[in-house]
């Protein structure tokens, strides 16, 4: 059995449609981020890891509803309450009142105890983060993405050529933008693991792109590669690696799917971001990274002019 055996799809010719599709996704995401800024005051739904504050996860012995909890915690003044996975599990997000996060949390605990009794619930998890730590986290996450861009750009420029590096970074930025857009649209809470997931997407997307680029490089170095129409060469390279791209994405998605279904609530957002990232990363390695390589080549040349010059200079030096 072999999927996409001897595939010869005109994938590169479809690139303009892909640009439109990507642009639409990115614009929708950015639009939604702006909408979020207007409606909830922040472009993403940040969790306590970023904003600072307290989070309490409780599990009730008996069935309880969010409305019951809300009533117990002061009705309309109650902090945000979200059902978390199981029927009887909830997270309560306590905002910061002054500096003392501890007091807020103990207060909530007491209120729940008076309303439901001591043994009616167990507290599974509490988190308390000061805003200062949250700010640091955000800065570190941005720095991490930036550094990974710079370092991979250098590595790829060194192992391949600069334009491959640029194209890979463009594709990866594209993936991150689309993922952030989805997060904004579905208001997925941005927490510490979400950041790890986004950075993993950076790794995965690069991984995928590099396999295609590796084939481009190989075909380029093969006999007659430099003379072949770059459009044809890149298209051939994508098609040749298509079986691998599909199979690897398939197995990875199968594993992540298992994690999504049985992994539990704590890890659900994390897994969802990864699944999204793998899907987008696969798409972008075919429809964004390779076309980007072609566009860069069309505008700035493929570096052969430089090579010629260098060769000439070298010849002169030996002469």
């Amino acid at each position, binding site marked *: 059995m072999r999927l996409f055996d001897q595939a010869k799809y005109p994938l590169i010719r479809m690139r303009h449609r892909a640009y439109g599709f990507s642009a639409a996704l990115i614009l929708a995401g950015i639009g939604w981020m702006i909408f979020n800024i207007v409606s909830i005051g922040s472009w993403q739904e940040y969790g306590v890891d970023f904003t600072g504050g307290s989070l309490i996860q409780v599990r009730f012995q008996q069935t309880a509803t969010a409305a019951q909890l809300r009533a117990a915690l002061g009705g309309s003044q109650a902090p945000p309450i979200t059902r978390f996975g199981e029927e009887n599990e909830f997270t309560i997000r306590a905002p910061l009142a002054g500096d003392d996060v501890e007091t807020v949390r103990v207060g909530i605990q007491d209120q729940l105890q008076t309303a439901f009794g001591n043994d009616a619930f167990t*507290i599974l998890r509490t988190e308390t*983060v000061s805003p200062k730590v949250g700010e640091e986290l955000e800065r570190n996450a941005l720095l991490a993405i930036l550094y990974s861009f710079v370092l*991979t750009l250098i590595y790829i420029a060194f192992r391949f050529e600069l334009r491959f590096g640029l194209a890979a970074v463009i594709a990866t930025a594209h993936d991150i933008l689309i993922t952030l857009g989805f997060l904004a649209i579905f208001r997925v809470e941005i927490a510490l*693991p979400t950041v790890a997931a986004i950075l993993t997407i950076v*790794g995965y997307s690069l*991984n995928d792109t*590099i396999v295609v680029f*590796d084939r481009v490089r190989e075909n380029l170095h093969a006999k007659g590669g430099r003379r072949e129409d770059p459009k044809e060469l890149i298209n051939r390279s994508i098609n040749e690696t298509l079986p691998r791209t599909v199979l690897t994405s398939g197995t990875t998605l199968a594993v992540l799917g298992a994690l999504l279904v049985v992994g539990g609530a704590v890890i659900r957002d*994390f897994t969802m971001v990864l699944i999204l990232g793998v899907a987008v990363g696969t798409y972008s390695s075919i429809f964004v990274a390779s076309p980007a390589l072609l566009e860069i080549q069309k505008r700035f040349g493929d570096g052969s002019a430089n090579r010629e010059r260098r060769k000439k200079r070298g010849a002169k030096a030996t002469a």
Partner: protein
Amino acid sequence: MFNSIRGRIIVILVLVGVSIGYLWNSGIKLGLDLQGGMHLALEVDDPESLMTPEATADAIDRIERILRTRIDAFGVEEPLVQKAGLYRLIVELPGIGLGDESRAKNLIQQAAFLEFKLVLSVTEFESALARIDRQIVGVLGVDSLRAFGRDTEGPNQDIQDLIFGGETADSSLADSTGVDEGAEAEDQSNNLRPFTSLLSSGDIEGAYLVATEDVEVATLFLALPEVQRALPRNVSVHWEADLLGLGQRTYRRLMVTEEDAFVTGDLLEDATAQRDPQFNQAQVNFQFNRAGGRRFSDFTTRHIGDFIAIVLDDEIVSAPVVQDRIGAQGVINMGNADMTEAADLALVLRAGALPAPLAIVEERTVGPSLGQDSVDRGQIAGLIGMVGVVLIMILYYRGAGVLAVMALGVYAVLVLGGLSAFNAVLTLPGIAGLILSVGMAVDANVLIFERIREELILGRATRTAVDEGFAHALSAIVDANITTLITALILFQFGTGPVKGFAVTLSIGIAASFFSALYVTRTFYLIYLSGKKASDPISI
């Protein structure tokens, strides 16, 4: 020897053996999110940035040592005290659940500054009372004092009366001086006794009694800088920690002491918790070092019959009378406290006082049940994912798929052994990283197999096709793995806690997948091909 089939098998068996050995001996350390426990990030509490960065960094260094001593004695298995950067400490206490967290935090945050001060007679303080009252009225104003009165209304007495000196005082003063309206108002404010009215004369010389419900207000008054300045020279006041029951009401003693301590806790050599055999109460025995003992005995010789206040973090834990010259040893009576409290106090005294107060900037506590739940779910997900991958590989690649699955088995053992050998901590995102790296491990195999198929289609002989397949797939595998490794290392550098765990797991996973695809799968292929002729067909 690494290239002969036998050499290769030996290398693989040794690595697998070592991995299993590590797993058998030390297992895999689970992160706090999986086994339950408390994670704290602490900083020096200095909101107004009064300390220089150097002083803060130095304080953190000293606090790290002190906390390590305190926590080692706390009795948690494998606690962690670690600096994160120059100004932050991370403390991890596995197994500390949601019941013990306040005790643990108290143990960490308690300054444990112990002082021994001479108790003075209240007469030393009396002269300052009028001045203190005036200052309070001056600073807070009559209106806010009234507001206070309403806020803290006590059950037995009208607090407003208490603060404003009561009716009798008011009327008598108005009688003696009341001339015109303005003067009367001024007199009223002059003769308010917000602080003095809270005090009753104490049961021992040197102590006032303050009703428990008034303690909060009195503390607030005393904290005013103006009041602090109004205190007589070399005199300070301290609350006693324990309550005192007198008839229907409870009180706390406010004791007048010398401002300067004659001995402090830094001269302590040892402290142990004990049960007082006579009254069956918890107590802490302490012992001074040579210098402290000399100072203590000199002082007590001169002050037989006087009271000494043992002040811990500004509160008096006990105030014994000096019966006789006391040498290097002494006792703190803990009153009604239980033995755990006494043991904790002895512990923090032994470890020493914190040079600066600590603020908790981050706290995460996970109950053990949630952690176990996550482990179980992760295992099931991992198992299902593995089965899925195995099925896909065998269905798609047949014989070669079986080889890849065997290599994947070796990969799994190596990753787990690697986690154990590097002492990596497995966190929840780490499990996800592990499962993700299974996908990546498959990728390397897929790259190789696809390449072999291509070579076979080009009409090469089986053995050449296999060799070419491995050779050509190498560059893609190397570059793809290294770029992923770069992001993993950056995550490690910038991440904290669970994210760091994820980065470590991912890195080990990448290294293992690299080895398993290029070396292990290759070896299995060599074994598979060894019985065949160069041109025999293979199952791929």
